[in-house]
């Protein structure tokens, strides 16, 4: 069984962390993953950096630019991950824009993911419809779960459609925004979280965008199965370095 599905069956609210591969240093990838698992994180999104990450705010943009400058690439990432399953058990997801994957070859990319032990993919600019029509069979062939986003603007009908083609969890974007641009959740978000919760979808939801501390994590996971921290984690890496991961994650597990 895919590690994501397994993980989703555990009772706790899931803490998921996003980081950009190749940042701060080119070879930090494995260190960060190991450290995150060691510190009780439930799931990891490994960001494959892209030159033009248009759904991301400045923090993730900057980390992507730096990572590319450091020399990160799809091939190198797979190299770094070659033996990752010897030391890490939690689900690993690659999050990346579609163009680098397309250039790698979608099937080759999926095959490589399977080989190194990646469990799923988040490709923000690969729309659900296109995936469904053209790529779903490839993902399934290599046992990969593709994860779709929904936002407060996503219509009920479309949420249902996305729920229908999903087979892991739904990435629930907390508000209409690029990453890193929120400051706390208000009534609007709460209503939205509740509304989606009440739809009783078959896939659990994990909230992303704007989770930055214990408070927002708790708010986000009141109705959802878990939450993803991205920009806040990158910022911490930038200012406090790889060694600060323990301290950073501790706050969410308290």
């Amino acid at each position: 069984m895919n590690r994501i599905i397994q993980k989703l069956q555990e009772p706790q609210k899931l803490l998921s962390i996003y980081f950009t591969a190749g940042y701060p240093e080119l070879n930090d990838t494995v260190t960060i993953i190991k450290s995150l698992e060691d510190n009780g994180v439930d799931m990891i999104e490994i960001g494959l950096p892209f030159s033009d990450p248009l759904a991301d705010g400045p923090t993730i943009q900057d980390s992507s630019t730096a990572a590319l400058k450091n020399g990160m690439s799809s091939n190198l990432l797979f190299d770094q991950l070659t033996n990752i399953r010897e030391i890490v058990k939690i689900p690993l997801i690659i999050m990346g824009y579609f163009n680098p994957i397309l250039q790698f070859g979608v099937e080759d990319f999926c095959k490589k993911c399977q080989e190194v032990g990646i469990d799923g993919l988040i490709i923000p600019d690969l729309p659900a419809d296109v995936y469904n029509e053209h790529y779903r069979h490839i993902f399934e062939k290599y046992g990969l779960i593709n994860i779709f986003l929904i936002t407060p603007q996503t219509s009920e009908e479309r949420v249902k459609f996305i729920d229908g083609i999903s087979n892991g969890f739904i990435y629930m974007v907390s508000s209409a925004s690029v990453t890193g641009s929120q400051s706390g959740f208000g009534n609007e978000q709460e209503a939205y979280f509740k509304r989606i919760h009440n739809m009783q979808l078959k896939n659990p939801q994990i909230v992303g965008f704007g989770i930055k501390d214990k408070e927002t994590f708790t708010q986000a996971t009141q109705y959802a199965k878990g939450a993803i921290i991205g920009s806040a984690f990158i910022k911490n890496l930038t200012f406090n370095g790889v060694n600060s991961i323990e301290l950073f994650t501790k706050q969410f597990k308290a």
Partner: protein
Amino acid sequence: MSYNVNEKGYYGEFGGAYIPEMLYPNIEELRQNYLKITAEPSFQEEFHALLKDYVGRPTPLYYAKRLSEKFNTKIYLKREDLNHTGAHKVNNTIGQILLAQRLGKTRIIAETGAGQHGVATATVCALMGIECVVYMGEVDIARQAPNVARMKMLGAKVVPATSGSKTLKDATNEAMRDWINNPVDTHYIVGSVVGPHPYPDMVARFQAVVSEEIKWQLREKEGRSNPDYVMACVGGGSNAAGAFYHYLDEKDVKLIAVEAAGKGVDTGESAATSILGKEGIIHGSKTLLMQTHDGQITEPYSISAGLDYPGVGPMHAHLFKTGRAEFIAITDDDAMTSGLELSQLEGIIPAIETSHALAVFNYKKFKPNDVIVINLSGRGDKDLDTYIKYFKL
């Protein structure tokens, strides 16, 4: 073979809407409404009234006597430089602002490279009394200062894009981010035939007025509505799309698309997308783009801010792939020389973008009786500093 978009938003294998889910409702709203709204008689009436009374259409089709003599062929210039705001861009912004109003939008965003689209957007926003934010690369802000000043006079906010090459591509990223952050009240007026479906088709339809006019104007002058060649520069591709539109299916009309070679196609400082590009995704569209083998988008280079874009619209990718259009790349130096030449032969100072199209005459021989229509996409007022410095005038 069709050169128009299909119902799914593709030109052959190019196009589509590769957008993050956050943009889905906006794009879907547009997709479902753009044909319906733009077909409404009240829309058509207002659109054409504004093009006539405000923009100054029809723009002339001018027989360039001295230029024709010099190259021993028959050259007509489609004078988009005479449009209000000085380029073809306003045809599109007039259309989109009317659409945005009918969709109930109260805030407009746009990206701009040369600043012409930014000015055209700020203009229609002033005209309608709608808030306007324009994203522009820092490099372009510096090299197209007059247009920045114009946007400010028109009441628009100009926000610098500071990432990447700090040019058009990055301004587009910023505009998309803004739209993601403001999905309900905001309409994004894309400035060329790029971006996710339905933008390429929508913008091409608004620009199609250019070839619609060429047809009857050429009939008046030459007794036939089809020239032998239609030629236009290509940044994103909107002025070329407008000039080609009604000729796409006319096989006797040869289409020439002119890209910016920058310092030379092989120098690493170029924006010749079709030659240097590979199929991929940029700004929500599957098309040809300049990229590394790893799929990272390359920073392009051209002296001209409006051509300094690593992608090209999906229609043009299709025209290239199918061979329907010939693609020619012109260097900075050749473009500048041809811009000066037109100024001094015909008294028309072209935008540097347009100058690229004019330079083709130095590389391709035409017959004395060939009728060639060049889309003179814009005037060079915004480029005076660049010209003056380049030629040390």
